[in-house]
């Protein structure tokens, strides 16, 4: 019975205290940064809502944090959340052990702490959280900011993830066109190629070429026709070559050439022999006269 009544008493007390203590009362908050060799780099005594700025820590430094909870209840949560002030907003929650007396403390050795401290040099916001189910209203205190130096060698590597998203466009680099010489140069050389014609005509004009009059030719119609056939077969062969060069393929070309070369052969034989006869006559006549 005595046990029962004490239980009741405890329950009543507990409900009373939770009714009274609607919020947490935290005092004596200390934040310090100590170098590896023990030298103190910064020491702050904090009082809500004062926030420290410009706090800096090396990656081998030790951050010490202590406080005292004045409430009768022990908080379940007495933690500081470090949130990185960059695009990732990484969160690291560090818990303090709270003794029954209400005193709580923790130390962070950045060299051994959460790898999120060691990606690179980053600024973290610090938020002190005190909460427990016995007290309705939690306590939140923005302590300020701290810049933690990243390790100079072997920084921690953030786990990489293939994000499913649109990738950068790729534009194909086409090979540059072949370099060609200037049109003017090729034009000049075309003219050069034509230059022998000029030489030919000049020389011929000095020699004085005389064409047989049409009347004389008409007297030998067979010869004239054979000559015309031969000449046009030559012209036709030239035309076939031109067509071959531009659009006609090899086998039709061979067919045309087969026919035309026969014509040229037959007509050419008679024409050239008559031309030779004429020449021979002329030479004989002139040689007679010379004699």
């Amino acid at each position, binding site marked *: 019975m005595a046990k029962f009544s004490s239980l009741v008493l405890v329950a009543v007390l507990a409900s009373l205290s939770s009714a009274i203590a609607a919020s947490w009362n935290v005092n004596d908050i200390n934040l310090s940064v100590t170098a590896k060799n023990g030298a103190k780099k910064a020491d702050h005594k904090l009082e809500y809502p004062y926030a420290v700025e410009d706090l800096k820590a090396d990656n081998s430094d030790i951050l010490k944090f202590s406080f005292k909870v004045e409430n009768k209840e*022990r908080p*379940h*949560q*007495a*933690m500081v*959340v470090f949130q990185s002030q960059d695009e990732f*907003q990484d*969160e690291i*929650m*560090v*818990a*303090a052990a*709270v003794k029954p007396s209400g005193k*709580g403390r923790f130390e962070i050795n950045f060299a051994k702490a959460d790898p999120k401290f060691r990606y690179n040099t980053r600024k973290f916001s610090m938020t002190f*959280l005190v*909460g*427990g*189910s*016995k007290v309705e*209203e*939690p306590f*939140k205190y923005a302590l300020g900011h701290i810049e933690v130096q990243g390790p100079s060698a072997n920084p921690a590597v953030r*786990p990489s*993830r293939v*994000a*499913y*998203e649109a*990738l*950068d466009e*790729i534009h*194909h680099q*086409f090979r540059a066109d072949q370099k*060609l010489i200037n*049109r003017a140069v*090729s*034009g000049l*050389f*075309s003219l050069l*190629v034509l230059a*022998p*014609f000029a030489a030919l005509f000049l020389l011929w004009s000095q*020699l*004085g*070429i*005389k*064409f*047989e009059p049409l009347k004389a*030719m008409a007297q030998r119609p067979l010869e004239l026709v054979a*000559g015309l056939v031969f*000449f046009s077969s*030559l012209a036709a062969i*030239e035309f076939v*070559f031109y067509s071959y060069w*531009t659009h006609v393929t090899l086998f039709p070309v061979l067919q045309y050439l087969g026919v035309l070369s026969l014509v040229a052969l037959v007509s050419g034989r008679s*024409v050239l022999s008559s*031309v030779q006869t004429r020449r021979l006559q*002329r030479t004989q*006549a*002139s040689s007679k*006269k010379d004699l």
Partner: protein
Amino acid sequence: MALVASATSLTGPRTLVLLDNLDDADAYMDLWDDLQSRQFNVTLHDVKTPVSLSKYDQRLFDHLLILAPKMTAYPTGMNAKSVVGFVAEGGNVLVAASSELGNTIRELSREFDVEFDNRYTTVYDHFNYDQDLGKDRHDTVVVNTGTHLSTVDAIVPQKDIPGPILFRGIAHSINPSNSLLTKVLWAPQEAYSWETQDGDNESANQDPSVSGKDISLVSVMQARNNARIAFLGSTDMLTDRYFSAPAKKHGEKISPSGNRKFIEELTKWTFQEKGALDVVAVQHHKVGEEEAPAHYRIKDTMTYTISLAEYHDGEWHPFSADDVQLELIMLDPYVRKTLEQVPLDDQSTVGTFTTTLQLPDQYGVFKFAVNYKRPGLTYVESVTTVGIHPFRHDQYPRFISQAKPYYTSAASMGVGLLIFSFVYLWGGLESTVKTTKKA
């Protein structure tokens, strides 16, 4: 009424629910109602009764809901391998856990790169607890959907959730480098995962194993075969009580909870009722032509068109996006181009994406690939293989101005022959006449 089986889910209507105890089913009446109104054929099963997921290599169910966190052994006829095999065959799975999560589910989750925290741990939040449901232990977390819900609207559209989400259960974390996993709901910054308290005056004296936004409350995976798996750390959030309970955070106004709508959207996504894409047609042809050629030539200009449809609300709809990309791949991508969507009109049944591009000056066997993977949507992979040929001998330019001297010399040769023949045939030297005259 068996004819009503035209489920709105693409996978099918057959749903198996595993419960620790059939009596637990009473807690989820609203969930069953919601599922049945969406034409699901729900079979409730406790873990002691033998049940098989497949028979003769055929799935007997399309969806599996595991609401049996305490399960210590699978029902006879089922094991972890059969659940993974069920997913491999395209079945969808929803796993809900609680603080009393047994090893069976924990090991199953590990198969999917999801790690639940230790047994008898709970997500606590003294800052965002619900004043009614989480009064005693601060273990019912009120999660703000504006800041702690995934922005992937294909899964759960933020704007449709009417209020904050109530969660009471266990934390899990997902492998951060697994691209198939997406965090849907995560814990507020002040939350931490700790052993379930018995109400004594204890203090969390070590760093919590997982805290803040690293605590996934709900996450989903879409496997490479487009099967979908959802992990929830809380069976409570599915119950009628949480569906109807208002959310009230300390110092904030009371508001209706978004649980019912959230679970509706999450199950719709998980059970393939939305966010599913399909390739309807792929066309490609040279510019100015209609038909796909047997092969292309390098530097050809061609048009590629792909039509995509999106499934939601029981029907296929035209799909809209501005980031569908075409790749021309021969070992490496040679060209990657974003396709333009043809404007939709009333008659559109599919979303059409098109582009016109010049093929690279590299011949070979190329793949026209649309590899469209976005979180929350089924993966679209369309590959068309085409040959790209080099120029044939007679496809090069026939005349180039720089060869003019050569053309001229050939022509002058021909013309010269004709002139010479003419002169030879019908001409003669005047000299003979002259000498005759002199003589």
